[in-house]
């Protein structure tokens, strides 16, 4: 190739864009050696590195209802009927925090004086958020650097599954972390810095969502209920140490795993109530505004001491050891290289012209590099998405063949005008087939079929990178080479 050809080729925006993207991708992937091992910035899923995942099913229902009774009465009835927490989600939906079948709920709603209109297994968005935060709190105590908690929500906003992914731990550790409960304790200040034990977390029978004590108050807090023994213990301690008569000197302190999470005096109202008798329903206020709400949300989690608001069962789980993860990683690299080489041989066999085969292979490799460069930011690589990557390599080379054959039609190298016409016809074929692949993969990319989502996203990205960036550049390059 002549020097000026080379320069004009590099000045072409399609070729320049391709080169810039390849370089940018390489920088983003940043392959380098650390302690004699090759490391990159690529994110790996849990089958290519040591780790475990647990997908948990939430045993609760979000249901639609109608009733002619006042809402409060209806919910109290339901509470009795079902013997579990019933939470108002919005004006048309309730959350039932125990597993029931639709028939069971149908009957219970009738008895409580209403009707069941819709039934869906799962929890509301706010409960799902609480569960997510609780799990994240537990995982943080483990100190794993790479952990994620994904809430899997359907189109109607109901969450039935939560998926926890923990890098660097095995299945046993993962199960322990997720199942672990903290030690919750309430102590009372006696004199100065001295405190005395009042009760443990097992005396708390239920914990509410963050709420405002009354409609007019701007102060947030969390209500919780004590067992009879708990209420007795807190009353005895308050009287014994004088919190009932002088609340401000005798704060109640809440500890989770021996760390203070809350401290406040009895309100004067509560102090006087307590002097007269046991109080089972307590309310811990945290302050006003967003800060108050945040504190209330955290306090709710602490009050539960790591217990989730609904029961969960493990729906699915998996783990991979470090050795096996590394083995899979190398196999993927090997499969990729081997695939590129075989494709190169087949292409050479067909065209027998290095000037065509080499650019084709270069384009194919650049496509993979750009794809990995983008994936580094948005997608973990797991086995399924690697399969997608290699499959895209296959369709990619197919389309380069279409471009080449279309341009070389009847064996002659065309004039620039004819060339453009043929190139656009080739791109027409490519666009049509790209559109079908994208449409075919779209449902998988939008749904949450665990590992298939990565596969679909990589495939769609690969098709887009091909159609928008590498194929147009290839058209330009092959034209310059052929018109020598």
């Amino acid at each position: 190739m002549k020097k000026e050809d080379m320069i004009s080729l590099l000045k072409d925006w399609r070729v320049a864009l391709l080169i810039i993207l390849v370089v940018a991708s390489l920088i983003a992937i940043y392959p380098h050696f650390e302690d004699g091992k090759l490391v990159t910035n690529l994110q790996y899923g849990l089958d290519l590195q040591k780790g475990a995942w647990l997908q948990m099913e939430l045993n609760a229902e979000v249901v639609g209802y109608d009733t002619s009774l006042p809402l409060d009465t209806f919910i109290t009835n339901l509470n009795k009927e079902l013997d579990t927490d019933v939470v108002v989600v919005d004006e048309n939906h309730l959350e039932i925090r125990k597993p029931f079948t639709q028939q069971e709920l149908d009957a219970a709603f009738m008895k409580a004086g209403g009707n069941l209109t819709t039934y869906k297994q799962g929890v509301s968005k706010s409960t799902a958020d609480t569960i997510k935060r609780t799990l994240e709190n537990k995982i943080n105590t483990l100190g794993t650097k790479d952990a994620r908690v994904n809430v899997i929500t359907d189109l109607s906003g109901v969450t039935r599954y939560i998926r926890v992914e923990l890098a660097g731990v095995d299945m046993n550790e993962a199960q322990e972390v997720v199942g672990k409960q903290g030690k919750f304790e309430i102590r009372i200040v006696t004199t100065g810095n001295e405190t005395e034990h009042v009760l443990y977390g097992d005396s708390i029978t239920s914990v509410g969502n963050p709420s405002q004590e009354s409609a007019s108050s701007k102060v947030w807090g969390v209500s919780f209920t004590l067992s009879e023994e708990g209420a007795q213990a807190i009353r005895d301690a308050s009287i014994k140490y004088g919190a009932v008569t002088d609340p401000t000197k005798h704060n109640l302190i809440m500890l989770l795993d021996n760390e203070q999470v809350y401290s406040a005096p009895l309100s004067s109202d509560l102090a006087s109530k307590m002097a007269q008798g046991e109080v089972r329903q307590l309310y811990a206020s945290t302050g006003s505004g967003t800060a108050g709400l945040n504190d209330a949300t955290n306090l709710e989690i602490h009050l539960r001491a790591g217990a989730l608001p609904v029961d969960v069962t493990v729906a699915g789980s998996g783990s991979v050891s470090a050795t096996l993860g590394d083995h899979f990683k190398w196999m993927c690299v090997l499969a990729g290289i081997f695939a590129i080489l075989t494709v190169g041989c087949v292409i050479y066999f067909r065209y027998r012209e290095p000037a065509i085969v080499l650019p084709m292979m270069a384009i194919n490799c650049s496509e993979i590099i750009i794809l990995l460069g983008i994936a580094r930011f948005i997608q973990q690589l797991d086995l399924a998405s690697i399969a997608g990557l290699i499959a895209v390599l296959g369709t990619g080379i197919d389309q380069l063949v279409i471009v080449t054959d279309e341009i070389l039609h009847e064996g002659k190298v065309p004039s620039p005008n004819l060339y453009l016409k043929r190139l656009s016809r080739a791109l027409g074929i490519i666009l049509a087939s790209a559109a079908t692949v994208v449409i075919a993969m779209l449902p998988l990319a939008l749904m949450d079929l665990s590992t298939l989502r990565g596969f679909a996203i990589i495939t769609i990205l690969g098709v887009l990178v091909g159609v928008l960036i590498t194929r147009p550049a290839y058209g330009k390059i092959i034209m310059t080479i052929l018109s020598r």
Partner: protein
Amino acid sequence: MELFRYDVNKYSPTQMVIIPLILLIVSLAIVGMTMMSTGLPVKPGMDFSGGTAITIVTTDSKETLAAEFSAYPLTEIGEGINGAKFLKFSSMDDAQFRSLSALVSEKYPDAKIDQIGESFGKSLQEQAIFAVLISFIGMAIVIFLVFRNFIPSCAVVLSAFADMVMTAAAMNVIGIPLSLGTTAALLMLIGYSVDSDILLTMRVFKRQGKFEEKLGGAFHTGIIMTSTAIAAIAAMLVVTYLGQVEIIMQMSAVILIGLFFDIMNTWLTNAAILKWYVNRRGSR
């Protein structure tokens, strides 16, 4: 390339469709029968029916392993090369699974464990069926929009459908289970399948010249396309077979089978329909 000594112009449309038609009927029968017994077109694997799969690399014999895990619902021990063993268990409850995973991480710390609960598998299965249906319908809509011509569009959609059905039947015969991975592979087939069909149809309708020449040219390009794809996927299959990466191995096997059926369905079924369509239009 002269690997395939087949002259796409030699036979009449009726001669061309006879083999694919017979195969399609046989495949539909196989798929239908599987559907009646399992509710799915291909026998479901663990992902959809629930259960536990454990991969370990060990020199222990099958018998030792069977004894080791006799307290658990072990259904199958598969053997790969280099001492890889694939253990399959049917569904068990949380407590039993926990004790199994404790046993595995103690005895075989390098294991890979995957477990899917029955109801979760069921919900994955429903979503997967939904995804495949939506994908297929979406593909058909794109094809109709691109060609705006009823019969040629139908030919493309039909040959994609035939690819998938024949591949599903072949999976049943060979014993590749339907999993999340192989479902994705079947969807990927839609993409590969329409690639060569679109090329064929575009060449026939958007180029000037004699039908026979255009068909011959399209065949020339199409075969090289499919064979490069076959080469890439075959390479993936060989490496993952030797390296015992079960999921990619099954995915590439499915795509590979589908690509061979695609050669037939594009250059026999689809080409025959186009030939018949062009002849009929020409004779009027």
